[in-house]
């Protein structure tokens, strides 16, 4: 056993931490969270130049990392500052799909993602699918050489900034069958594609995506027709490492902010941190965050392994992060009192991001049920 970072990862962490400290102040983050784009293009270019995007891909795919621990490292740092960059969407989800299933020119797009010149979004979830990956109602029909897509996708993060969407659609099978799901690479200016774009409460942007007879050439298919489920599951597992590590970073910063506040805020003539009841609750938070860190390590260490163990850890970690995230966010607001309720204070943005982690890629309840099915039953 060795839980230390390798030298390469230590260097990446140091340089990334410095870059984020220089470019992601609380003011910048709050302004970006409300901007029309949802993130800073300059910062994105800076991250790419630093090699942060490349760290999320293997050498085979043109990067220099790509393992679970590389992703955990990058996203924990982004979480620490509350960054809203759509790195999960463009790189982990869409980049991961392109790397696994892309052919010819499609695969070349990975290079553009790594160098920071391309934005993407995965349009997979639907209003009725509730985190269930195999539940796809969007239809694809073959018309000659073309594919025609009809359906609706919900809360597609980063859709309006994206150059391409990757859209899932079903050509056969029951609505929740794993077989019969295909993925398509769709330029966002394709006819029949409508994006209704809006801000997210924790920063960044998303869109509702309507597909009305979206006609695509044969070359837009990613991988084999009807065969995309395993890849979808894999990239969602990797994205779960990312958002759970991000949550861990958020928790670390929130804990530090709250601890500092307990030391300076005075009530009844002394710092409130001198009250034992608050000390014990901070101790509980610390214990739970260590649990969260171990869960993220478990998942990062298994995400590149065989499917059964991987998915068991996906659900275990996402469940635990959901519960601990809620505890840390709610307790930190409570211990701050009124100031913790204000938008102006740093905590608000961080707590909102942490709470919203539970609404992506399956919440604590969804993953508890899934863990029972995978591991207990």
């Amino acid at each position: 056993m060795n839980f230390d970072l390798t030298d390469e990862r230590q260097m990446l962490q140091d340089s990334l931490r410095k870059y984020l400290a220089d470019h992601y102040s609380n003011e910048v983050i709050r302004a970006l969270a409300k901007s029309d784009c949802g993130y800073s293009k300059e910062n994105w270019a800076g991250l790419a130049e630093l090699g942060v995007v490349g760290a999320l891909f293997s050498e085979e795919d043109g990067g220099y990392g790509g393992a679970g621990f590389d992703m955990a490292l990058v996203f924990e740092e982004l979480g620490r500052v509350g960054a809203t960059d759509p790195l999960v969407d463009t790189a982990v989800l869409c980049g991961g799909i392109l790397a696994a299933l892309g052919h010819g020119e499609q695969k070349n797009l990975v290079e553009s993602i790594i160098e920071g010149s391309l934005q993407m979004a995965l349009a997979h979830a639907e209003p009725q699918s509730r985190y269930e990956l195999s539940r796809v109602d969007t239809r694809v029909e073959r018309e000659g050489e073309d594919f025609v897509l009809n359906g609706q996708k919900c809360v597609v993060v980063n859709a309006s900034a994206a150059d391409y969407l990757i859209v899932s659609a079903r050509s056969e099978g029951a609505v929740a069958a794993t077989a019969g799901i295909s993925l398509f690479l769709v330029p966002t200016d394709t006819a029949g594609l409508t994006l209704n774009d809006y801000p997210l409460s924790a920063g960044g942007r998303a869109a509702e995506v309507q597909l009305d007879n979206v006609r695509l050439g044969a070359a837009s298919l990613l991988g084999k027709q009807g065969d995309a489920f395993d890849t979808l599951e894999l990239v969602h597992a990797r994205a779960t490492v990312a958002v759970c590590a991000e949550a861990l970073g958020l928790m670390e910063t929130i804990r530090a902010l709250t601890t500092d506040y307990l030391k300076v805020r005075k009530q009844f003539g002394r710092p409130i941190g001198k009250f034992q009841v608050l000390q014990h609750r901070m101790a509980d938070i610390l214990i739970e965050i260590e649990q969260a860190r171990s869960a993220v390590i478990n998942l990062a260490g298994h995400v590149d392994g065989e499917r059964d163990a991987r998915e068991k850890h996906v659900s275990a970690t996402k469940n635990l992060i959901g519960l601990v995230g809620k505890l840390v966010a709610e307790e930190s607001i409570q211990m701050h009192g009124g100031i913790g309720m204000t938008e102006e204070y740093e905590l608000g943005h961080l707590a909102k991001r942490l709470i919203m982690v539970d609404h992506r890629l399956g919440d604590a309840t969804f993953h508890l049920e899934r863990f029972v099915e995978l591991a207990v039953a």
Partner: protein
Amino acid sequence: MNLEYTDEQLAFRQEVRAFLEAELPESLSAKVKSGKTLNKSDIEQWHAILNKQGWLAGNWPKAYGGAGWNAVQRHLFEEEMTGASAPRILPFGLAMLGPVLQEFGSAEQQEYYLPKVLNGEHWWCQGYSEPGAGSDLASLKTRAEREGDHYIVNGQKTWTTLGQHANMIFCLVRTAKEGKPQEGISFLLIDMNSEGVSVRPIVLIDGEPEVNEVFFDNVKVPVANRVGEENKGWTYAKYLLTHERTNIAGVGFAVAGLESLKRIARTEQSKGRPLIENPYFAAQIARIEIDLMAMSTTNLRVISKAAAGQAPGAESSMLKVKGSEIRQAINALTRSAIGSYAMPFVSEELEPGSNALPVVPDYAASVTGAYFNNRKLSIYGGSNEIQRSIISKALLEL
């Protein structure tokens, strides 16, 4: 023991229900039901309808224009109000200031102010908290210095709920520096239009400017606007707080919230079935409902005692803790119920009726905002930590 209401009480409930059916405008109940922010005129409209009926001040004696209801009647009224999705009555003039003036105000003050609370001429807000004095209220610093027949007020209040709409504020101010912090506080009524008063909204994490900072810069306040004696304000403030704590359990809000959660869970889908049929989710609803059933009876036990003339003491602290926790649990589970649609920030311009396309299902629009906003339930009015200290001191004598 008898858990049933008396015939008289049931008749009263029926009367309230019939009134609400006839007089509550659908435009208002629809807004409340969907969790939308009520604007100033919505609230004024509803207050006026209740006042016409003589029901705006259920807790005031009839002599002052109130309904003179006892605690059980007030409870039944509240329950029917929340059940019908009526706007809540703003507490500042009616539940807070009114009782203080009736108990400690001069005859002139009662004659002048109380009718204006009822007819809406005065919209009151509360000037208690300060940046350094939240739950530790006695450490407040806003000072009022006597100059002839005026006080000159300087300082800052914060967390002033709906202060942006108010034209009057009741304040605790420091009139003497000697002695214990509780001594030397006076209770002043201040016209918000006085020179030197300014209001700055504070945007909360749900994106709404519900609370404000109020600044006093050499504000001249007539000595006649002081309630009771100089330096005895703490007594009146404590009296007010016991009134603020009526209906503190918020059972009606919890019941309405649980109903709304169940409605949403019947509509939302999980694996092709209504979410409410998912045993993992249903178990979480059940846990809250079981707590709520017991809390609602705890609430009635305290109310019955109060109706029999016993003033609730630390029991109201128990209701505040349990009541806020249950409501927050309902808010959190409702947020879970709407799945990914908890993520969009649905501001006013995205709501139905605007030019923008609707983004989320109508029932989901206010859920995330309500979750974040209601984190305040365990913070304001004496945080839950303070309530627990009161309980351990008063009931456990620790």
